[in-house]
């Protein structure tokens, strides 16, 4: 690991000031950044430890019903927050399906949003990777790319964003609050992550020195609480990134869908909001036909980026299943295996 300067500012303003130096990086829990630094993938000159910044570790309900989540709230604390579990259950389920209990105890909200891709070629300094070293090419194209993107990818990069948490967030119109050199601003979470285009090194639309201070979930997103599920296919039952995941949220009145919110994970460089699919569900009767139609719409633009054509049909089926689970109703208690497709299978053994 390359050596670095370490500073621990006392306020958000001091942190943003300290980050003005080129080569500076914010350090929260470090569950992703330290891993990247150990592999020489990230080589910051200066770490600005933000873990002691006051006021960023709170979950609060705002007067307009929105939930404001401080950037330093730990994943486990957020998942078990009573208001989150009750009002935004798919957010809790997504959080609990991610990483391990140890990592969830450490990893922060802001860090989750800004985690880098898990593409093996990005993680290997000996491989060509336009995201890690712009202009070097992409060894994932033509390489082991079974798990790579099927939506929004480009010739220069086929990596996916690994977050579970971001998938329900983007479906529920979450907003990101940012402190930067020119003060406070906010953007939709949907506008935070970028598609690769010709500049895959830039994961997000943040400017250098920008600090995420909070994520807000709108109050009206609480209306989906009774029919909200996150579903995630992994290569093992627990402690693995998504091959494909889906977050499905429905408002059902008198047997008809009033409004649907849908997003996919593991399919693109950003959490993928499926608006066209949502539109097909408005006014529809919940059921296999309507759900399949929505899934077709969600994946209409999908293209394999390598040996991953299977992910397109897998994503359709996961979306159908997530919608079916959401329509059946949010379970009263978090499933023993959060987001697992095996959770509801009677007699399935996971020992």
């Amino acid at each position, binding site marked *: 690991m390359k050596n*670095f300067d*370490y500073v621990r500012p006392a306020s958000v303003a001091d942190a943003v000031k300290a980050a003005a130096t080129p080569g500076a990086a914010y350090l929260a829990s*470090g569950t992703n950044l*330290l*891993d990247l630094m150990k592999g020489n993938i990230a080589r910051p000159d200066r770490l600005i*430890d933000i873990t002691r910044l006051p006021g960023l570790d709170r979950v609060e309900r705002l007067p307009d019903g929105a939930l404001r989540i401080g950037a330093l709230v730990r994943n486990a604390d957020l998942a078990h927050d009573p208001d989150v579990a009750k009002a935004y259950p798919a957010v809790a389920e997504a959080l609990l399906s991610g990483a*391990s209990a*140890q990592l969830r*105890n450490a990893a922060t909200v802001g860090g989750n949003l800004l985690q880098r891709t898990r593409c093996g070629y990005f993680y290997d300094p000996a491989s060509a990777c336009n995201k890690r070293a712009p202009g070097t090419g992409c060894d994932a194209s033509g390489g082991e790319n079974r798990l790579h993107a099927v939506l929004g990818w480009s010739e220069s990069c086929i990596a996916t964003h690994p977050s579970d948490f971001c998938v329900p967030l983007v479906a529920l119109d979450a907003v990101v609050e940012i402190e930067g050199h020119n003060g406070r601003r906010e953007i939709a979470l949907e506008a935070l992550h970028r598609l690769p285009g010709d500049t895959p090194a830039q994961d997000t639309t943040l400017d250098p020195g920008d600090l995420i201070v909070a994520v807000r979930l709108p109050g009206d997103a609480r209306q989906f609480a009774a029919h909200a599920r996150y579903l995630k296919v992994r290569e093992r039952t627990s*402690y693995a990134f998504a091959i494909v995941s889906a977050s499905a949220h429905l408002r059902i009145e008198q047997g008809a869908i009033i409004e649907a919110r849908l997003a996919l994970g593991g399919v693109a460089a950003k959490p993928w909001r499926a608006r066209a699919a949502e539109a097909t569900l408005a006014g529809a009767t919940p059921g296999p036909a309507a759900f399949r139609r929505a899934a077709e719409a969600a994946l209409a633009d999908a293209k394999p980026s390598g040996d991953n054509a299977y992910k397109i049909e897998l994503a359709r089926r996961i979306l159908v299943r997530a919608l079916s689970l959401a329509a059946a109703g949010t379970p009263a208690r978090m499933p023993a295996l959060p987001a697992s497709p095996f959770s509801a299978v009677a007699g399935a053994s996971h020992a």
Partner: protein
Amino acid sequence: MSFSIGLTVNGVRQTIALDDPRVTLLDLLRERLHLTGTKKGCDRGQCGACTVLVDGRRVNSCLTLALSHDGADIVTIEGLARGDQLHPVQAAFIAHDGLQCGFCTPGQIMSAIGLIAEGQAGDDPERIREGMSGNLCRCGAYTGITDAVLDATQTMAASNERRSA
């Protein structure tokens, strides 16, 4: 640059000088404080062998800088037994053969203590397995580990009841 941090490790408060900011909590414990019970498996947050309690919560000590924990309370496997009297989780791992080679065991035990304190899994084996998925056991002692955690959960709950009765 040199740094100084205060840590309480297994109940003992100490001031530690660090000449390098790169030292992880794991390396601090093993290489500087010579508490080698906490194991370095993958050193990348994937195996759980380095699990310790920081302010009562289980975390991977390999993926966190020692400097970030100025003022924290750390408990490692060395801090569990009271003389010859084992912690109930340690005793349960022995009773249920929750190990073979033993390399992952300190991490498993610290993780199990964290899991029981979190109170989410209760006595449901499926929830225990899910909650322990961050601790890999290459010998495959998972069945014994699950039984040990289940047993320790019940023992500790019963002993808490006796204390509050």
